[in-house]
């Protein structure tokens, strides 16, 4: 059994960098897919709305870990072999699409209906209404919960360790397997996650407070 050295810290930091890469990739893909889900969820056609609701309910009712297993092991058996990074990114994308889609749908629906009606009276097309009238107003209220969900995605990238992608959690497992100092190693990994997540959580909360300034109760 060796002792904990600077090299181990560097290895953990390297893992943390991969965690950030995976988070960014997953959030980017998930954001695009989530936007699609949001558009479908606010569609004028009832069938489209129902179908996208089914998608959201199904994804929100399935553990991310199972989703990851279906993408990584399941597709592997069928003949589509994805590298661990891509498999993790794809499953996080599917997962985020459902949650972000619902978050953003709520924000879009919070914009007063009269805004849409007025825009329609001015003969704007559906896309013009969405992009020029509704989204700019919805974006303001969408930022705090979106940042909050970003933290969620960051934490959930730890599951990529299960399929062997060496991010922060996997790196700490590897070190712990050789040193067996779990409190030290996982504690340090936890601190690194905390250092990444806590500023974002704080930021999200501050944005939320700023937004509610008009409705804030006197403390």
């Amino acid at each position, binding site marked *: 059994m060796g002792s904990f050295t600077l090299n181990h810290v560097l290895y953990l930091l390297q893992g943390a960098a991969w965690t950030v890469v995976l988070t960014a990739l997953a959030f980017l893909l998930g954001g695009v897919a989530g936007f699609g889900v949001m558009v479908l969820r606010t569609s004028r056609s009832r069938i489209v709305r129902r179908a996208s609701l089914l998608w959201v309910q199904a994804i929100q009712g399935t553990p991310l870990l199972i989703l990851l297993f279906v993408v990584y092991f399941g597709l592997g058996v069928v003949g589509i072999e994805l590298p661990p990074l891509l498999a993790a990114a794809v499953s996080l994308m599917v997962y985020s699409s459902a949650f972000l889609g619902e978050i953003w749908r709520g924000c879009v629906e919070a914009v007063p209906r009269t805004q849409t009606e007025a825009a329609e009276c001015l003969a704007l097309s559906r896309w013009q209404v969405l992009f020029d009238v509704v989204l700019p107003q919805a974006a303001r209220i969408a930022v705090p919960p979106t940042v909050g969900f970003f933290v969620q995605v960051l934490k959930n990238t730890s599951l990529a360790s299960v399929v062997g992608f060496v991010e922060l959690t996997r790196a700490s497992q590897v070190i712990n397997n050789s040193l067996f100092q779990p409190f030290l190693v996982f504690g340090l990994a936890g601190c690194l*996650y905390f250092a990444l997540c806590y500023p974002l959580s704080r930021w999200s909360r501050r944005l939320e407070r700023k937004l509610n300034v008009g409705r804030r109760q006197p403390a």
Partner: protein
Amino acid sequence: MHYRFDFAALEEYWPDFLSGALTTLQMTAVATVLGLVIGILCAIGRRSPRAWLSGLCGAYVEAVRNTPYLIQIFFIFFGLSSIGVRLPVLAAAILTLVINVGAYTGEIVRAGMDTIPAGQVEAAESLGLSRAQIYWDIILRPALERVYPALTSQFVLMMLASSITSQISAEELTAVANNITSITFRSFETYIVVAFLYLALAVLLKLAFWGLAQALFPRRRRLGTPL
């Protein structure tokens, strides 16, 4: 792509799937009750005027909410065994679930308590209610009723997160699935079946919470509206 789905190969493993799902449900039930207790205590602690107590509860909530559950499991499970405390796997899994969900519940309950107008508490004080009565009847019960939807969806999320305890080989649904795939090599089918089982469990849980709300909150039942 010439893959032939063969769900029939999984037929003989139904008892295993069911027992895994049952274990998941049991873990969820225990962790829900204990997590709610911890969460309520934590919310009360955070509102305490004593700085050390509210600081401690705040640190607990922030530490849990800003680190991944998987790291928490490894920290607690392997950490405890490194200092010679060997818990049964299921107990360790439930312990980590309780610690995890307690922090989330604490934050939700605290948000509910913060919505109780100070005037109601003052009114209760001037009517001579004891501190315990005020906390229970004026603050806690209305607060819980208000945040009930958020609480229940948190518990459903916890049930889904319990799949992660398969990583320390707690024999719940996901671990059962992993075992079955290593016997049958039918991973695609197995995980799809398990995904549907989790979906069914989530629906079941939501129904149970809905029924519980009907029993617990008579006002909601009578008026059809929450507080």
